[in-house]
């Protein structure tokens, strides 16, 4: 699904070159739930923005869903982002002056989908996150957990092949974080491929696989683990 090989990302100024990612390789299979961990500044977010085609990379190769994305132009990258990737951000990133329905609709609008189809998908995805009764609410009228659920609904509405989550519980209290995490686990169980960046080791243990990044390089790939209900309960925040 997501395969980066010897990928590098270099930020250049006149006097210095900074490697955000160096010889970075990762292979995420379809249906996997992978947690990418590492300290601040290790390159986790850079990896995620490149994986989400929000940034280009300097060297190496990147195949997404079998497509070499190295030389795609901006339009093609936008199309892939729209059709194959769902984003979940730490800060939710809802548009404040659009209501819940309109926020979830945003990616579908850029897909040129008919109104009836858009409505069906929006209702299904909001139903999925338990917010179908809040269609007309604005982000400011929702709790943090509810806002993140709206963001997840927005990510799900387009039926993406890959969900990229950047610290999805980072701005939430424990209770809300648990709810969001359980939702992600449910989504994964239904077959979604999820790559989640987090600096929280406890959260990472709930993924199938952990990838540890330091100084822009993958330093450790934990063995695959299989979810069990007892593990979920064990790792759930108190």
């Amino acid at each position, binding site marked *: 699904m997501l395969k980066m090989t010897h990928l590098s990302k270099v930020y250049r100024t006149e006097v210095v070159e900074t490697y955000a990612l160096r010889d970075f390789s990762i292979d995420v299979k379809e249906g996997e739930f992978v947690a990418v961990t590492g300290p601040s500044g290790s390159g986790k977010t850079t990896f995620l923005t490149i994986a989400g085609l929000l940034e280009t990379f300097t060297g190496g190769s990147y195949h997404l869903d079998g497509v070499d994305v190295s030389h795609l132009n901006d339009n093609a990258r*936008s199309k892939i982002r729209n059709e194959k990737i769902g984003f979940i951000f730490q800060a939710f990133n809802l548009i404040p002056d659009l209501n819940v329905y309109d926020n979830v609709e945003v990616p579908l609008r850029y897909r040129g989908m008919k109104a009836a189809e858009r409505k069906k998908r929006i209702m299904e995805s909001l139903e999925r996150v338990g917010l179908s009764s809040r269609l007309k609410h604005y982000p400011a009228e929702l709790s943090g957990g509810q806002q993140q659920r709206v963001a997840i609904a927005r990510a799900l509405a387009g039926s993406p092949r890959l969900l990229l989550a950047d610290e999805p519980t980072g701005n939430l209290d424990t209770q809300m974080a648990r709810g969001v995490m359980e939702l992600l686990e449910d989504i994964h169980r239904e077959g979604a491929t999820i790559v989640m960046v987090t600096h929280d080791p406890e959260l990472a243990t709930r993924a199938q696989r952990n990838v540890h990044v330091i100084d822009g390089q993958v330093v450790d790939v934990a063995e695959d683990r299989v979810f069990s209900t007892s593990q979920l309960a064990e790792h759930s925040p108190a």
Partner: protein
Amino acid sequence: MFKYYLQLAVHSLKRYPVLTGLMVLAIAVGIGASMTTLTVMHLLSGNPMPGKSGKLFYAQVDADTDNSYPHKDPLDMLDYRSAMDLWSAHKADRQTLIIDSSVKVVAPDSQLPPLMRTMLSTTSDFFPMFDVPFQYGQAWTAEQGQRHARVAVISAALNRKLFGGANSVGRTLRIRGADVRIVGVLAQWRPSPVFYKVVGGRFGAATNGRFYGDTEDVMMPVGTGIDLNDGHFEPFTCWDLPEHAGHLTHAGCAWVGLWVQLDSPAKVTAYHEFLTHYAQQQKQLGRFTHTDVRLRDLMQWLTFNQVVPPDVKLQTSLAFAFLLICLFNTVGLLLAKFLRRSGEIGLRRALGATRASVFAQCLVEAGLVGVLGGIGGWVLTLVGLWAVRQQPVAYANLAHMDLSMFALTFLLSVLVAVLAGALPAARASRTAPALHLKTL
């Protein structure tokens, strides 16, 4: 997607009402100022005879005996003899003479005191040539013109003043002590400018507003006009002193205009040759010094005489310079607005919006500002035109907005706003999504 962009634009404009108000105001003020002056310019530089101006020509030969210059433009008017020679030759499809003066007018059967009114001495072709509309009666006949019949056509305004707007055909006017029978009353008619009496405009451009005044109140045959009003015709240019002051018929003076209607290019060529031949013949006879002739069509004649007052042109230029300043202001405001929303734009890019989508969305928003600015500009233009109508200029009461200028107001406003939005929209569309996702 246009509908979606429009919805987003409405949301966005509502979200920042002060910024929106400033942008709309900047465009409205610029549009108001420029459309006011442009409307006046449009009214003053329009074609007074659309569809026919290409067939109407002003004929010039030069009877001036001044030989200081080997070649020069002929005088703007003709001497009486040349005018009568050319007119009576009937070489054009239609031809008419123009002589202006003022007269004292009395309606014997009304209680009104004598009125000073403008009079046009002309020929019967004047009316069909210039499509002059009649309310009552008709023009005099050529035969009546030839025998100097005491007949007149009066304007709708004079008819209202003297006869309360009733059908006054058959009633009598007293002009310089002579009774004249009214044979026709014009319907409302006011070509803009009153093109047939435009002369010498290029020498006194600052006063060219006079060409946009009213048409004459009394019109009568040339012969009759001269019989009744000799000695009082103007304007004129003389190179010899008249035998009796003001009596120009046999003097070395130019004071008669000649308009001809030529319905085909071949006839234009033929008439030009006729004028040239006439001038050469008159030179051989020793009456002319110069053989230069001119035959300009109506619009060429108006352009040659610079009928649009220079102050109107200057005002228009200044107003458009002001509009340019407003445009730059709007560019700045839109730039600030779009950059302030870089977080949202970054998010939209992340969710699949292409650069073109973002660019289009921003342009639609700018266009909506333009439409709102157009409404404001239209209101300000109406106020501006009202202010023009309060000015002591001949064209003041012409200053009204027609449909084409109304449409142009909105077109210009949207164009200005879209132009102003192009650069900010281009900047916004280049927003790097990853950089701005945390600033929403």
